[in-house]
């Protein structure tokens, strides 16, 4: 496939703002070594804030709150913000912007013939991207997404879904080890928490640091694919690792924070060079003049591209749990799991718990929490020593990554503004009537 001509695309000034799929976004790509805790990834434009307080309702930590008598909201300090962007996607006025965007830097790398640019899209991107091109909500566009990445000029179409499968192997094995070592000296504690979600990880580090030993030591899928691309991938494709520029493509804003964590440098380089989200990928496809809907379905490149259904369900709340159980069941029981559907752990909202019977082993007790307010409840239980579970999955965004802060916006939310305005007028009308 011949890449699109990007020569007409020129970088904007650093710090300038642009509209990306309905969200204002600041052109700023942090340099290596920048302290991620000092960066504002999500902030309110005070001129556009209408003081409705919707953002505050959706924020689990209270990082976004009213700062004056007019009720104008701001993220008070990046240290208290988990960068999930739930405030942003739920703001009916489009008043919340993104503070970090690698779009221009990425365009420059795609144009540079000396840089080997590697794509690493998360599962959920393929269930949201199509919406930016007129498809109905949730349409699967995985094949077109791979074709679009090739057309944009990415040199290797590798896939975070492959790393999701790898995560299951590592995290599932870790869980089995933890279960077996209970009672021994220096045993790692149970329950084991999942570690895929960057908002949740920062949440633990900030609010429940005493529970850090319960977090799986596994990196997230993207945290695994970055270093693999620059070691294994470089070996397999005979590429110099220092020429490789890895691009994490996520349904998420918090992944931008994860991407610049200084400790993620196990390849000998920065493991993840850039992070963009679903909206930004759609913006880039449009900016490059690619007709997305007429693209053929294409496969990713081998070695770090192939994936399974267990990987794609990482996008849903309960998905990592189900994928892990598909492995744990077979390893612990020594038997084949005939029906991979483990529907009891599938979670739409709130907290979901289940006892999974594994032959030749016993009961595996699991919990899935969707949203950090629910996560806090499970954390308090673990802290009090009252948690009966072996394994707990946490997703910061209600419903999971498919509802991430970097996904295309729900058109209903701004449309609901009209209805709520009517409601407010009605309320005032009724209040007046009661007074009179």
């Amino acid at each position: 496939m011949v890449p699109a001509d990007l020569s007409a695309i020129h970088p904007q000034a650093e710090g300038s703002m642009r509209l990306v799929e309905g969200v204002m976004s600041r052109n700023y790509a942090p340099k290596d070594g920048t302290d991620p805790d000092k960066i504002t990834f999500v902030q309110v434009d005070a001129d556009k804030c209408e003081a409705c307080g919707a953002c505050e309702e959706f924020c689990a930590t209270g990082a976004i709150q009213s700062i004056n008598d007019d009720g104008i909201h701001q993220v008070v300090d990046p240290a208290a913000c988990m960068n999930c962007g739930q405030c942003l996607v739920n703001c009916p006025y489009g008043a919340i912007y993104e503070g970090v965007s690698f779009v221009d830097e990425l365009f420059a790398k795609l144009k540079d013939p000396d840089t080997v640019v590697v794509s690493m899209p998360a599962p959920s991107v393929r269930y949201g991207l199509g919406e930016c091109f007129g498809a109905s909500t949730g349409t699967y566009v995985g094949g077109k997404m791979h074709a679009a990445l090739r057309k944009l000029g990415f040199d290797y179409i590798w896939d975070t879904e492959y790393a999701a499968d790898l995560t299951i192997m590592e995290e599932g094995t870790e869980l089995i080890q933890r279960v077996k070592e209970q009672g021994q000296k220096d045993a790692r504690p149970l329950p084991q928490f999942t570690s895929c979600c960057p908002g949740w990880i920062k949440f633990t580090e900030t609010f429940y640091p005493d529970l850090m030993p319960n977090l799986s030591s596994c990196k997230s899928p993207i945290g695994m694919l970055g270093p693999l691309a620059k070691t294994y991938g470089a070996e397999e494709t005979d590429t110099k690792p220092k020429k490789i520029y890895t691009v994490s493509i996520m349904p998420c804003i918090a992944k931008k924070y994860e991407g610049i964590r200084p400790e993620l440098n196990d390849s000998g380089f920065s493991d993840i060079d850039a992070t963009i989200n679903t909206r930004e990928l759609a913006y880039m496809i449009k900016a490059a003049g690619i007709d997305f809907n007429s693209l053929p379905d294409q496969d990713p490149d081998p070695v770090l591209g192939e994936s399974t259904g267990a990987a794609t369900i990482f996008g849903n709340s309960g998905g990592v749990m189900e994928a892990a159980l598909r492995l744990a069941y077979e390893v612990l029981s020594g038997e084949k799991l005939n029906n991979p559907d483990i529907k009891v752990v599938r979670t739409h909202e709130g907290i979901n718990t289940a006892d999974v019977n594994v032959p030749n082993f016993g009961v595996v007790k699991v919990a899935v929490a969707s949203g950090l307010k629910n996560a806090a409840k499970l954390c308090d239980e673990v802290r009090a020593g009252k948690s009966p579970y072996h394994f707990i999955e946490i997703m910061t965004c209600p419903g999971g990554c498919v509802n991430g802060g970097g996904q295309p916006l729900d058109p209903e939310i701004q449309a609901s503004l009209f209805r709520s305005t009517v409601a407010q007028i009605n309320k005032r009308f009724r209040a007046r009537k009661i007074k009179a």
Partner: protein
Amino acid sequence: MIMKRRSFLKACGVMAGYAVLTVNVASEAFAAAMSFVALRQKSVYAADANPKIYTYRKSQDNPMIVKIYNHKDGFLHDGPCGHKSHELLHTHYIDRSAKLAALKAKGYKLSI
């Protein structure tokens, strides 16, 4: 302004309609957002169960996963949670609670 009986009734009807329809707008908006999420979730499970999209449904069956963990010549030949895995695929976490304590000391009230 003189209002005819007919237009008066019509206006009443419209107002009554709004009054009924807009009860609990907040919870309605929330329900709408969740149905939006539900559509995406449904599509994810449909792709998982569609053999035309995913040949395999378990991570351990992925041929590229089998290849990387191959005991003989795989890149991660010492297996999951082996030495090489720990070097490349595992991490450690950083206690960030001091920043939070500093924020609270400045007088900020958070909800947690």
